[in-house]
């Protein structure tokens, strides 16, 4: 019996378990998936919690709902990968051997990496919304907040779901307007990037939206410290921004197990071939989702498109054929802009987000880099798609490779 071992049962790992169980004969291949937690979080839903649109119950389900029959599930901490011995050491001392290994251990926020961030104001006037705890604490805080300086700060790049902080400020604008508080709330968007986003066309559209919604942009800000006593954030260049409520997007790091295994870069991401998704160093190890160091967004849509490529390439490796699939870094993000509307971006390693229509050229129904009600419905519907189609590894009517048709240069 040969063994495929999958580390991490988040979005990417769960999709791979479903896909590979269909591909590999049950009498020849054991598939085992390991994760320390039993709850699956719908992470794109965290954004909606601070504004009372979703509650905790809307974003959690047991992981066990999404595993196919015929996959062994082990709930355990993972100590380290021993790639030289084709084995993984679990927290309780159990050793698992593998023929092929998929690393899908993701990334997580690390607030302790910024001086003064996780200090006396943490979850009092300083919050994150990338954890369920932070999102829920912020929801409670906003219920009684009387207004002041609301500062949203991105600590460093890369971080999960690159558009979420923008969506957060768009939502905040609508939320406080609807409560009649907008004139008492100043919203400031403080980012290490040179503008609202990295790529020119999207930066122009999204930057325009910030201006239109009276949200102040502070670009090129690399945070050095949070001063809890004077309630301000300070960057390396000496710029200071005062806050009454700070919403932080802390640094994101890959899992510590990658560091313990000596397999990561300086942020614990695993060096991975950006086209084949194979580890840069080990022939029988593949990496998918946020755990990889590939130069694209850390996002569920990327994990989804990459999973389709990995399914094909892993079969190539197992059957001793040359790789036939190549990942293009495809990402596709619905961006909520408040008031029941949204916009959409679709891009890859080489092509920046462009205007147009998606997925059907000229027809849409979704508009790229346009604000519309339909784009908002796309995002709302997506939660259903995520739970019922995506995690289970079923086919979606969207190409994993980015399409130029429908885009305007």
């Amino acid at each position, binding site marked *: 019996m040969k063994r495929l071992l999958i580390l991490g049962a988040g979005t990417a790992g769960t999709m791979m378990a479903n896909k590979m169980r269909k591909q590999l004969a049950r009498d020849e291949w054991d598939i085992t998936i390991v994760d320390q937690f039993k709850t699956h979080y719908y992470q794109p839903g965290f954004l909606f919690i601070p504004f009372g649109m979703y509650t905790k119950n809307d974003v959690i389900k047991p992981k066990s709902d999404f595993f196919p029959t015929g996959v062994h599930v082990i709930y355990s901490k993972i100590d380290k990968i021993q790639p030289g011995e084709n084995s993984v050491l679990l927290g309780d001392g159990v050793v698992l051997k593998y023929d092929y290994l998929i690393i899908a251990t993701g990334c997580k926020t690390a607030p302790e990496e910024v001086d003064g961030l996780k200090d006396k104001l943490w979850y009092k006037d300083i919050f994150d919304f990338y954890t369920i705890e932070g999102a829920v604490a912020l929801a409670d805080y906003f219920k009684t907040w009387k207004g002041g300086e609301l500062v949203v700060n991105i600590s*460093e*790049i890369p971080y999960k779901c*690159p558009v979420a902080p923008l969506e957060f400020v768009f939502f905040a604008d609508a939320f406080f307007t609807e409560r009649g508080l907008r004139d008492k709330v100043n919203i400031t968007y403080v980012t290490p990037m040179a503008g609202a986003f990295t790529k020119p066309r999207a930066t122009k559209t999204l930057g325009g939206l910030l201006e239109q919604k009276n949200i102040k942009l502070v670009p090129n800000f690399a945070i*050095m410290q949070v001063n809890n006593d004077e309630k301000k954030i300070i960057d*390396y*260049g000496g710029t200071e921004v005062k806050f009454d409520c700070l919403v932080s997007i802390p640094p994101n790091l890959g899992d510590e197990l990658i560091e313990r295994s000596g397999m990561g*870069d*300086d942020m614990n991401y695993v060096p991975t071939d950006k086209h084949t998704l194979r580890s840069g160093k080990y022939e029988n190890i593949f990496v998918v989702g946020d755990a990889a*160091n590939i130069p694209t*967004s850390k996002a569920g849509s990327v994990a989804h498109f990459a999973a389709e490529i990995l399914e094909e390439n892993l079969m190539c490796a197992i059957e001793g054929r040359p790789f036939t699939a190549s990942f293009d870094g495809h990402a596709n993000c619905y961006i909520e802009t408040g008031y029941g509307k949204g916009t959409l971006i679709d891009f890859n390693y080489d092509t920046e987000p462009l205007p147009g229509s998606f997925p059907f050229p000229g027809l849409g129904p979704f508009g790229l880099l346009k604000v519309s009600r339909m784009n908002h419905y796309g995002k709302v519907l997506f939660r259903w798609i995520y739970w019922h189609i995506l995690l289970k590894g079923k086919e979606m009517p969207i190409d994993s490779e980015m399409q130029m048709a429908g885009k305007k240069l």
Partner: protein
Amino acid sequence: MATKTYAGVNIEVNDEGYMLDSLKWSKEVATEIAKEEGIELTDKHFEVLDYIRTKVANGDTLTIRGINKSGVVDAKTFYQLFPGAPLKKATKIAGVAKPESCI
């Protein structure tokens, strides 16, 4: 694309002024590019530029975090050496490509 003359050498640069061929780099070239950026290079600057050139030659990604951990310079000093946008300025002076900030 344009051609500029630094320290008597003709050098091709892109629209943003980044050198296209990093083999044409020399300390003299660096000194002149730095002048355009309003920076007078010291030994410490060159130590950082060497580190950046080595990292890029190895195909590694440059980040403020990586530089902070490098042992060559901490982030705060890095900002003092190349004020404003240190990574963008330092890479330009080091004659390597501007780091892509893909998110």
